[in-house]
């Protein structure tokens, strides 16, 4: 096994419906596999839970999008306000009809817009970065049937990096939990 391990990415099983995929993900998770992933053409409610993505501190760390978004909001809001303060009070003070230089209520609209802008940019780019996208190459793309993961089929892949991974066992396991089509995935250029 050891010489093929470098190029073996994992074992992929195909399922017909979101229901069977969730049941299968639960079983794979219960069997103690950690490095596995499910694939669906739309967000299936309950799939993250079935894969155990929400569990424990690891689960919290896995989805840092809300925290990153909050950070972006703070950065945008504070940066937006103090930028205006710096411009209109410190570096370029202008007397506009005798108003105080730090006329903070007038700075609120821009502060608000910058808060939203910061939070949105962090949410989107944070989500992409955590998902490691863009990723032009993925070994799964070499499986012709995997094209239907963005159409009408559901897949589950047990990855070879898992501690418990063994090609024959994983294949048998996937066949045992109702995968219609099971194939090994190779990482080759």
């Amino acid at each position, binding site marked *: 096994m050891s010489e093929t391990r470098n190029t073996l990415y994992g074992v992929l099983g195909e399922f017909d419906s979101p229901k069977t995929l969730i049941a299968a993900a639960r079983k794979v998770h219960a069997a103690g596999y950690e490095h596995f*992933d*499910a694939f669906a053409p739309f967000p299936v409610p309950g799939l993250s839970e079935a894969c155990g993505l929400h569990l424990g501190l690891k689960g919290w760390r*896995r989805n840092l999008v809300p925290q990153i978004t909050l950070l972006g909001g703070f950065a945008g809001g504070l940066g937006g306000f103090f930028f205006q303060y710096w411009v209109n009070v410190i570096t370029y003070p202008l007397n506009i009809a005798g108003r105080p230089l730090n006329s903070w209520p007038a700075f609120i609209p821009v502060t608000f*817009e910058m808060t*939203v802008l910061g939070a949105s940019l962090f949410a989107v780019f944070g989500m992409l970065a955590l*998902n490691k996208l*863009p990723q032009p190459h993925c070994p799964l793309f070499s499986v012709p049937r*995997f094209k239907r993961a963005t159409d*009408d089929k559901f897949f589950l892949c047990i990855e070879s990096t898992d501690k418990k991974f063994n090609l024959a066992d994983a294949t048998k396991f996937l066949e045992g939990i109702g995968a219609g089509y099971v194939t090994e995935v190779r990482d080759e250029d």
Partner: protein
Amino acid sequence: MSEGPVNSPEIPRLPRVLEPGYNYASVTDKIASIVLTRPVSMGWLAGFSIAFVIMMVLLGSIAWLFIKGVGIWGINIPIGWGFAIVNFVWWIGIGHAGTLISAILFLLNQQWRTSINRFAEAMTLFAVACAAIFPGIHVGRPWMAFYMFPYPSTMGIWPQFRSPLIWDVFAVSTYGTVSALFWFVGLIPDLATLRDRATNKAAQIIYGMLAMGWRGSARHWHRYQSAYLLLAGLATPLVLSVHTVVSFDFAVGIVPGWHTTIFPPYFVAGAIYSGFAMVLTIAIPLRKAYGLEDFITMRHLENMAKVMLATGLIVAYGYFMEFFLALYSGNKFDLFLVEQRLHGPYSHYYFALILCNILTPQLLWIRKVRTNVAALFIMSLVINTGMWLERFVIVVISLTRDFNPGAWGRYQATFWDYSTFIGTLGLFVGLLFLFVRGLPAISIAEMRELVAHKSHEGHE
């Protein structure tokens, strides 16, 4: 979905949000085929060509403007704003319905948003693009339009952040950016679908690059869904703030007819009103041309008509309050402005506005009108015209009749005013034509979700 009263015998069952008989594959096939396999039709070619010619009118008008200056327009002191600002406010307002549908109805978990959100968001982007042209070319020296942004200039000067006009720069640019992000995030799964279904090498490469390696992984969906939800939550107050800030351009000034606190809510309602009208103007020909009646059903059209009726009534309340507050305050300049609206040189615009925005939409109380596609299409055009007239009335009547009779004036739009405005219509329609052929006009991933939801419910 509340099923109780809907199924009771005396109330007819609501039309469905998706006609029965669709599965994941057929939904994908139907929407993706419009982009990938359908040959270019004569209708598309003719429509795009006309839009392209009108777009050239816009380019020609702007070129002439750059050569001669803003004097080719009808603006002159005291009316410095004219068509450019009327069009800017009108276009920005139209964009609002797209964000409302995609963000607010998403947070409210309204299933009927699914098949209309994608092209409504595209409409938002194109409308913001058309709107952003106007302040840029209206500044007189457009090659210095970048002065509006704070940047470390060698002259050491900075913008003045107490001015609503600079708030507007931030509001509109944030709105454009966030709308584009929201739209693109929603598109990622569909771009992956197009990548996997495309048979042509160029299409595979282009969609493949845009999809960024999306493969529907549960881990990816997990984060994707929280990002999408957060974006919807951020876009909701943003969309309300944008037209609020646009209304500050008027309301913070002391000009009679502008200086009122009713402006922000009534501008936001007006924006949603005109935006839904524009969504209907686009949806009705789109569903007909591409046979999407099963996806964009009568339920969608009727719901949009109801939103128009509701926001139209808020707008009517705004018009009423402007009059009431002028009378109640006893402010003679406000009272004079009311008189000018009713009897002044532009009173026919005001009466046309009342006809388009308040009287005609009352027909929407009648169910037969709400379910008549042709009537809705005409109604949407009438409301769009009415909302344009509203901005004309606000800008022109107030500026031509302020405090001192010595500062009164008249405004007459010129050929170039009209050609620039009509040109942006060409740009808008042209971009929509390209969008329909280049990207899925309906969100495929969300339609699959709807199919899954329906089959889970067990009926259909």
